[in-house]
């Protein structure tokens, strides 16, 4: 996924240029390409389908209105992913600020995670096995320490490359690699013989 996004970089730059010259319709291709990973991110963080939709829309709107600040050296996907991530963070902070009740922390429970079995298996039994494996995987990810959980989700569920994760987290790529290696080792240990 990350590789194909790298190949798309040139296309993204052309789209940005077209939008800035008044071709609004070319932005539709950007939405089509990136709505799924952005929705995935927002839903995973907020656990609310309507709010996730709202956040993705806001992310695209903010990106569109900020296109004049987009630099050629940026990766468009990383840029809009960071914008969306920051909107999610703001919403979560406001939830904490305005709620009298304890809000479920990001990633603290695996059972509320939105899972949908891919329609690939030929039988119901196959689908059931896939579903069980998904539940075990999400439970294992949810049990990881918070800093590892975030990188593993971004890497394996959203398909960001090490470089993209480093840009999104504003951390050196070496730090990101170390975190992902540790997280992966923990995950493998937790799931060995269980999938």
């Amino acid at each position, binding site marked *: 996924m990350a590789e194909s996004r790298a190949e798309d970089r040139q296309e993204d730059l052309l789209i940005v240029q077209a939008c*800035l010259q*008044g071709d*609004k*319709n070319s*932005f*539709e291709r950007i*939405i089509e390409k990136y*709505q*799924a990973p952005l*929705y995935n991110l927002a*839903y995973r963080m907020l656990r609310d389908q309507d709010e996730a*939709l709202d956040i993705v*829309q806001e992310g*695209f*709107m*903010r990106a*569109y*209105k*900020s296109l*004049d*600040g987009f630099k050629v050296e940026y990766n468009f996907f990383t*840029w809009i992913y*960071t*914008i969306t*991530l*920051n909107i999610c*963070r*703001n919403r*979560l*902070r*406001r939830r904490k*600020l305005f709620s009298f009740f304890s809000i479920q*922390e*990001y990633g603290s429970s695996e059972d509320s995670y*939105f899972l*949908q*079995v*891919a329609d*690939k298996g030929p039988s119901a039994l196959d689908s059931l096995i*896939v579903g069980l*494996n*998904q539940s075990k*995987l999400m439970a294992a990810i949810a049990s990881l320490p*918070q*800093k590892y959980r*975030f*990188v593993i989700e971004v890497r*394996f*569920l959203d398909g960001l490359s090490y470089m993209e994760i480093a840009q999104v*987290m*504003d*951390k050196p790529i070496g730090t990101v690699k170390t975190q992902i*290696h540790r997280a*992966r080792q923990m*995950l*493998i240990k937790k*799931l*060995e*013989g269980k*999938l």
Partner: protein
Amino acid sequence: MSVCIKKEQYLDDSLTATEAAVFKAHLADCAECAAAVSTYHKITATCASIVVAAPHLQADIMAALPDNYYPRFSFWSQLLASPKTTMVYALTTLMLATFGQFVRTGSNIFTQHLASKDNATEASAIEVSFQLDPTLVTVPQVYTVAVVGDFNNWSSSENLLSQKDDKLWSLKMPVSRGIHEYMFVINDNIWITDPAAKQTKDDGFGSKNSILDL
């Protein structure tokens, strides 16, 4: 054993073809590596099977985009873009003007109450100088810096730092007494911990909030 240490690189797909072939051959002899690699492949396959049913948002978003491109925060362009917005701005201005007039001419009790409240707020707030040295951050080019925290509802558009002589970014602003969490936002999208903060706290998203104890 020496081949075992190549496992992470193998899983990262960062070995050369020859090194990868050697590692694959090693899997036949090392049950530990073989189990880890097999589990890893199952994990990636399971991740790939998790389909997010993202709704098609193109139509809604495209309809909401302005017909012509207007740069962000351009007050006049947004004002001209929509008659509704113009109406909202006009009404807000009218309400503020009316309220201002009421405060100036209202009863003494009300004015005194406002004054005492202002004094109390001033007494409980301390002027804080936020500073960011751009050489301490990994962002190659810093265009804007904002301070965001629980004291401004984590808004990245309210308190912008300014830069003097291409050196420090700084802002002086009153902050109420107490313990606050904050971060700097660079270029409107990169959130960083204050490199000079003496105390930090996990923010729950893999980063750390800086702590301001007043």
